[in-house]
Every structure is written in structure tokens, then in C-alpha cells.
């Protein structure tokens, strides 16, 4: 039995090496021409807690999970039961575990999946320096039909620095696992890989966001660590240095956003990354960037909220604060990547827009995009750069920094430009930047700051629109992945439906959405928030045609394709 997609979970206690096994399986699949996607789940312990690597291997690009897992392999059973809700399985599934791996969790047993034993510990003892996780890797590779060469190649490269003995032991472990797999109950094997013209990348969404930032021209980053946004900053730290840029670790998020405002004012495209609580702290200064017209980009990797919430799990519940968290009338950009690979494009585009429009851009990524790893076709550089309108020539008269142009964008000088000195101000000001509480100045500057966002040509990137038919699914961000998959199934079953995934959340594009929904009689809104934040945003800013249903649920459990498929199939 072959399948176009196979899903596997590696689980075990801390130190069992399940993430290593998962990463190696992902890389091996990528090298052999398959696409792979992996999310990670771990206990609350800082170090040494139980962990699970949830994988999906596929013949076509994949950046979200399936409805169920085909294989669960537990190197041991310690606390693995607590991941049960995240590992849906049916009676077709296969659960593999070590009879010496501790007590088998009731919750896993309740799934009714088939069970088989692999004596990891015993097998590892028979190999000098043998490793149970490498045996598990070999067993899974054997079960799903990954070629031995690809797996051993990854093992060799990964352990290059660990020495001959470690490498030999791991290779022997993988081979033992593969040999053992031949005697295990059958599970779906991956259909043959479809030819790839170029070598795939292995990348996380947070790394992709960092890449998009430097492609866009970001050369200053201020950083304050927070889960799950930190890896954006950690990827940028060494890579920005290689480009001659600078990353400064700030004392808090208030400092990090103000440092980037300072650096950008000084002429260097600047960015920070954070997550919900950090974004909340930054909102006052986001308003400063808007009022002083200083371009900045903030990548916010959403997690469960409010307050500390669920830091390691995904949710789309920072939409409201990103849109409405600023005091006063403060138009700004909100851009949302809708896939792991799109974290690169959307961040780069946001950087470009922020500098072009001299305002603040918030990139709304989330934990499930940011901390997932996938093999993807190398994303081409779309060419968007941070380019600012600057004054030219010698300053003839007193410089009007905030001159009221037709486009709303005023030439922005940077320190060092003789004759163009001005004071950037969060106080309302006149065209020169001089503080003013006059009604006419306030109204003129408010109009200007709104107009520059409203009249800009955002092109086709404001949304991804796919398919046709009189049913439309409206979604954004990471839920786009399962929606796409649900729509494929819906079409395969004879239905017709279109996808509209909105990338440019702010400013709103009512005319474009109306055109995208032309002829639609039913709209299904899909999002991962308890308060239906996206649905309410749509209701506030757009006219939705026909009847509208909202399918929304909070994190931490991901919304799966079949749940959306059922919404469509049952709505008739």
C-alpha cells in the first residue's frame, strides 16, 4: 500500500533524542526528493522534559499536518500520554514502543491503533555505542520506504564532528532499525518521489522570516528573547553580522522597539521580533513610529494568550491587538504570512512596505509557522527592498519633513544631510515637525498618514486567491494550510469552492475582496481564535456576500483539514 502522504510522531522522554531523529528523517526525506514537515511539542520543563517530533512526509509540498498519524513510535513511554490529544490516530494506525519503555499510557491505548514492540534498549545494547533514537529512525525509514542511502548520508553528515565511533554506532543503529522494520506490521509506504529540478531547503518559519528580513535590506535588529519569536532573532544574530549589520540585545521590549526606531530614524532599515506579551509592551512606541513616520518592522510570532497564556502553542489571537492596539487613530501595516515558506516573502514585503510608506509594519506569524521545519523548494527572492523617499539636492528653505504630498509620503532626511535637520516628533506637528495642537494641523497630518497607506498600490500580494465556485473559504495565516488541503479534498469529491487567504490585513482592501468574492453565495470563515477575531474584523470592514459561517477554535490543538472539509461538505 502506498500513499502520497505519511504522518509519523517520534516521542520520548528528555534526552531520548526524538528531535534529532525527527530532524534527520526530515533531511533524509528532503534529500531523497520528498517534501517533509515537522512540528515539535515538549513539556514545560526547561530541559530534559518529554518531547514529540510530529512529522509528515509527502510527494507534494506540505506545510501543515494531516488529520491523523499513521505511526507513533515511542522510544520510551514516560509522560508521552500528555501529547495524546495532539496525536490523533485511527485503528489503521500503528503504535510502536519498547516493552521495557515504562508503562504504556492509557490515552494512547484508547486510540485503538495496532501495536507492535521494538526492544530499543535491548537492541541498542547489542551495538557498541548503539542509540535507541537512531534505531527508531531506521525503523521508521524502513516502514515508510525511505532509501537507506539518504538516511545514512544524513547521519554521516550530522555526526561528522562527533568522531568515527559515534558515526559508526549510529549507522549500525539505523541499519538495525531498518532490518527490524521488515518484520513489523505494514503501514503506508510513501509513493515514489516526484522529480525535483533543484535541491530542496530545510528551513523553519522563523528562519524564513529572518531571511526575508535581510533580503528586504534589514541591517539593524534589536532583540529581547521571548517564546516562540526568539529563533527569528537567533537566526539573525550571526547572519546580520555576516552582512555587516548589527543586532543588539535590549533590556526589554520597550527598549528593543525604541532602538529600532532610533536606528531607522538614522537611516538603517530596522526590525525586531517578539510574541504577544512583547507586542503588548511595544504598542505605545508603535504609535510613535506611526506619528513620527519612522519605518520599522515588528515580526510577532503569535502564541496562546492572553497574558503568559500558552507560550509554546499556536493561536491566531493577536489579530485584535495588532490591528487595534495602538491608541489614537494610527494607521499602520499588518501583514500575515500564510505558510512556513511565506514567512520569508511576507516579512520581506512588510519591510519594503514599511520603508516605502514610512510607517510601522507588524508581521503576524505564529508558533505553528515559526517553529515548524519543512523541506521546501527554494523560495526565489521577489526583489522587494527597503527603499525610502529621500530629499534630493541642497536644502533651499527650511525643511518640511512632513510636507503634505499627494501620495502622503514625504521625503525623509537622515542625520548627516546638511540643511535637512528636523525634529521627529510623537507630538502632533505641522509640516516642519514643530509641535502643534492646532485642529488644522492635526486633521492634515491624520489625513496624510491614512492616505499614504490607502492610495499605495499593493498589487496582487494582498491575498492568495485560488479556485472558483459559489462557496468561498476566507482565512488568514497558518490556518490557510489546512484550508487548502480541505479544498483539495472538497474538489476531489466533486465540489467547487474558492480560497481567499488575506495577507494584507491592514490596510483593508474592500474593493479587491468584493471582486474576489464575486458570485459567491456562501462564505466560510476559518480561524484559530476563541473570540472569532478575524470574523469580526471581516464584518467590520467588508461586505460579505450571501450567508456566512465562522469556524473558529482557540489553540493549542491545530485545526485539521477534515474538520474544514466537513464544514463544507455538510453545508448544503
Amino acid at each position, binding site marked *: 500500500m502506498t500513499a502520497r502522504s505519511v504522518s509519523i510522531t517520534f516521542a520520548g522522554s528528555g534526552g531520548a533524542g526524538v528531535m534529532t531523529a525527527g530532524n534527520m528523517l526530515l*533531511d533524509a526525506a*528532503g*534529500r531523497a526528493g520528498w517534501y517533509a514537515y515537522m512540528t515539535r511539542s515538549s513539556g514545560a520543563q526547561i530541559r530534559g522534559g518529554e518531547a514529540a517530533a510530529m512529522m509528515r512526509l509527502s510527494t507534494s509540498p506540505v506545510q501543515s499536518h494531516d488529520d491523523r498519524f499513521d505511526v507513533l513510535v515511542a522510544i520510551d513511554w514516560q509522560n508521552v500520554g500528555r501529547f495524546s490529544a495532539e496525536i490523533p490516530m485511527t485503528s489503521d494506525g500503528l503504535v510502536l514502543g519498547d516493552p521495557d519503555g515504562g508503562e504504556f499510557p492509557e490515552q494512547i491505548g484508547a486510540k485503538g491503533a495496532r501495536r507492535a514492540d521494538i526492544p530499543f534498549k535491548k537492541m541498542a545494547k547489542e551495538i557498541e555505542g548503539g542509540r535507541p533514537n537512531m534505531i527508531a529512525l531506521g525503523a521508521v525509514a524502513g516502514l515508510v520506504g525511505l532509501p537507506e542511502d539518504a538516511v545514512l548520508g544524513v547521519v554521516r553528515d550530522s555526526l561528522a564532528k562527533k568522531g568515527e565511533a559515534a558515526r559508526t554506532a549510529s549507522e549500525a543503529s539505523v541499519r538495525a532499525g531498518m532490518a527490524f522494520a521488515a518484520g513489523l506490521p505494514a503501514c503506508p509506504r510513501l509513493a515514489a518521489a516526484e522529480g525535483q529540478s533543484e*535541491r*530542496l*531547503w*530545510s528551513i523553519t518559519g522563523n528562519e524564513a522570516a529572518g*531571511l526575508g528580513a*535581510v*533580503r528586504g535590506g534589514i*541591517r*539593524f535588529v*534589536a532583540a529581547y528573547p521571548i517564546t516562540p519569536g526568539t529563533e527569528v532573532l537567533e537566526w539573525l544574530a550571526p*547572519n546580520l*553580522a*555576516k*552582512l*555587516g549589520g*548589527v543586532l*543588539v540585545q*535590549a*533590556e*526589554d521590549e*520597550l*527598549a*528593543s522597539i*525604541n*532602538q*529600532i*526606531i*532610533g*536606528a*531607522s*530614524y*538614522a*537611516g*538603517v532599515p*530596522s526590525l525586531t521580533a517578539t510574541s504577544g506579551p512583547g507586542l503588548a509592551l511595544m504598542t*505605545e*512606541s508603535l*504609535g*510613535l513610529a506611526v506619528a*513620527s513616520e519612522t519605518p520599522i518592522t515588528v515580526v510577532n510570532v503569535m502564541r496562546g494568550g492572553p497574558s503568559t497564556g500558552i507560550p509554546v502553542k499556536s493561536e491566531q489571537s493577536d489579530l485584535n491587538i495588532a490591528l487595534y492596539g495602538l491608541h489614537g487613530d494610527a494607521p499602520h501595516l499588518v501583514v500575515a504570512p500564510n505558510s512556513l515558506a511565506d514567512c520569508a516573502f511576507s516579512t520581506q514585503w512588510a519591510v519594503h512596505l514599511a520603508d516605502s510608506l514610512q510607517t510601522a509594519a507588524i508581521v503576524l506569524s505564529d508558533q505553528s509557522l515559526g517553529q515548524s521545519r519543512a*523541506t521546501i523548494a*527554494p523560495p526565489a*527572492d521577489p526583489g522587494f527592498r527597503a527603499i525610502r523617499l529621500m530629499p534630493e539636492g541642497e536644502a533651499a528653505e527650511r525643511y518640511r519633513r512632513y510636507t503634505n504630498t499627494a501620495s502622503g509620503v514625504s521625503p525623509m532626511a537622515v*542625520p*548627516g*544631510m*546638511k*540643511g535637512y*535637520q*528636523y*525634529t*521627529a*516628533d*510623537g*507630538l502632533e506637528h505641522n509640516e516642519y515637525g*514643530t*509641535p502643534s495642537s492646532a485642529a488644522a494641523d492635526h486633521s492634515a497630518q491624520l489625513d496624510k498618514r491614512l492616505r499614504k497607506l490607502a492610495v499605495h498600490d499593493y498589487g496582487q500580494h494582498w491575498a492568495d486567491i485560488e479556485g472558483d465556485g459559489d462557496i468561498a473559504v476566507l482565512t488568514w495565516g497558518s490556518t490557510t494550510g489546512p484550508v487548502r488541503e480541505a479544498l483539495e479534498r472538497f474538489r476531489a469529491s466533486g465540489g467547487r469552492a474558492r480560497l481567499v487567504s488575506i495577507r494584507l490585513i491592514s490596510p483593508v482592501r474592500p474593493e479587491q475582496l468584493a471582486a474576489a468574492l464575486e458570485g459567491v453565495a456562501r462564505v466560510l470563515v476559518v480561524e484559530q481564535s476563541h473570540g472569532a477575531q478575524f470574523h469580526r474584523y471581516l464584518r467590520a470592514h467588508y461586505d460579505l456576500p450571501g450567508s456566512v459561517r465562522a469556524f473558529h477554535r482557540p489553540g493549542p490543538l491545530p485545526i485539521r483539514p477534515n474538520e474544514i472539509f466537513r464544514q463544507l461538505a455538510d453545508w448544503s
Partner: protein
Amino acid sequence: MEATSTCPSYSARDYKSEVKPVWCPGCGDYSVLGSITKALAELSIPPESVALVSGIGCSSRLPAYTNVFGFHGVHGRALPIATGIKVSRPELTVIASGGDGDGFSIGGNHFMHACRRNVDMTYIVMDNEVYGMTKGQASPTTAPDWEKSKLTPQGTGINPFHPLVIALAAGANFIARGFSGDQNGTAQLITEAIRHPGFSFVQLLSPCVTFRPEQRDWKDMVHPAAVDPTDDPARAARRLMTDDGFNVGVLYRGSRKPFQPERQASVDSVADLEKEFVL
């Protein structure tokens, strides 16, 4: 930053704008504005090469009254903005300025970490022991028994913050105190602070004649520091802990290396970074 011989000479007036200050008549901040512009003229720094950053409060209005590149940000965040400017454009002369509430209360964490980070800039705090813009509340440097605020009619009952001691403990590289009434002396302190590498902190006693009229007496209370500045933090700490708060002059001069990350590219393009992703 040393002036070079090729720089044209400037007068203090070249650094002033035509914007009329919102300050009350008699406010010490007028004189501080004069001292800053005199110091810049003394150093002959072109106005376009200076970034002057402030937060919120009476004294934070200062940048708009100058003819340098200014940034009037939000309350308490002048130092992070100044840090971003200096780290990304090290050739600029960067000055942050503001009041005691802005710098020591809402911006207290940044003050501590700016001292510690030791970026080459100068921080001027016009200290009048009161929030003036919000009409007279106690600040971190207000005495515990000051009862004139509606917000704390019995006084704050808590000891004032000692900015110079905190600055020293946190790692500031240059510490001075001045009095706004002595415009030339203060200009000299600011000149030295700008010249000194690393984070230079200058506390300027700048009377609020409106909410703290008794501060008019400061002119009779200030006195020059009896001894030369030390480079020994332990000795500086003893002096700062025991002085009367009116000791004026350079009080500490450290020699810590300023924070300035290297900006040397080692790859030709972003495409070179992408190799790490290729399987």
C-alpha cells in the same frame, strides 16, 4: 568627539531653532539649552552630525529648540532611541536629554542598562525633583517630606533615588553634576562629557520656578567639587554617597571601552547565507 581642523567654526546660535520654548519664564532649562549649544559650538560639530533625543516632560521639549537632528519620542525611552542611532551610525554625535521623571522613573531600566552598555553618547538630565508638565508631582529625586503635591499630600515617604550613585554602580564611564545657573561651567561639563568615550552622564540641577520656587536658592547652595575627578570607582562611590547633592563638577572618569559592534561584512550577498538551508 574631537573637532577636526577642516571643520568650519560655529557659534552657539547656529545650533538654535526659531521655535519658541514652552518653558515658564525663569525655568533653568533655558540656560541648559544655551549650555548645550555652546558646547556644540566649542566642539565645532556640524549641526547635521548631531542627534539629540528626548522623551517626555518639560525638559524633553528641548530638541525642537535646536537646529540639530532631533527626536522627541515617548515618555522614558530617549536612551533606547539614542542607542539605536549611535550603534547604527557611530559617526554621529549622540546626546539624550530629559528630566528626572523621564529618566529615573519610567525610563529607569533604560538608564541602568545604558550605563552598563556604555555606548558612546552623552545623557543630560535636567533634574528639578518634580514632574512639571503634569503640574507638580513628586519625582524619584523628590525629598520624602515634600508635601506640595496633590498626589502625595503627606509626602512620598520614600527616600529619593541617587542618580549618580546608580550611574556609577551600573557602569557609566563619565559622571558629572552641574547647575543650570552656571551656563558656561555647564557648557564646559557637557563639552567634556561629549569628548569622553563611552556613556557620559551629566546631572544638571535645573530649578523649576513654578512648582519648586524654593529651588531658586540652589544658586547659593551649589559649590565646586573640592577634589579632582577620580578614575577609581570605589573612591567615586564613597564621594558620591557622602556628598550633599550640590557638589558640582566632573566626579568620575572611567576608561571602559565603549560598546560598538563591528560592522564588517564577511559575505558578498544574502544569497551566500542561503547555502545553510540547502539539503
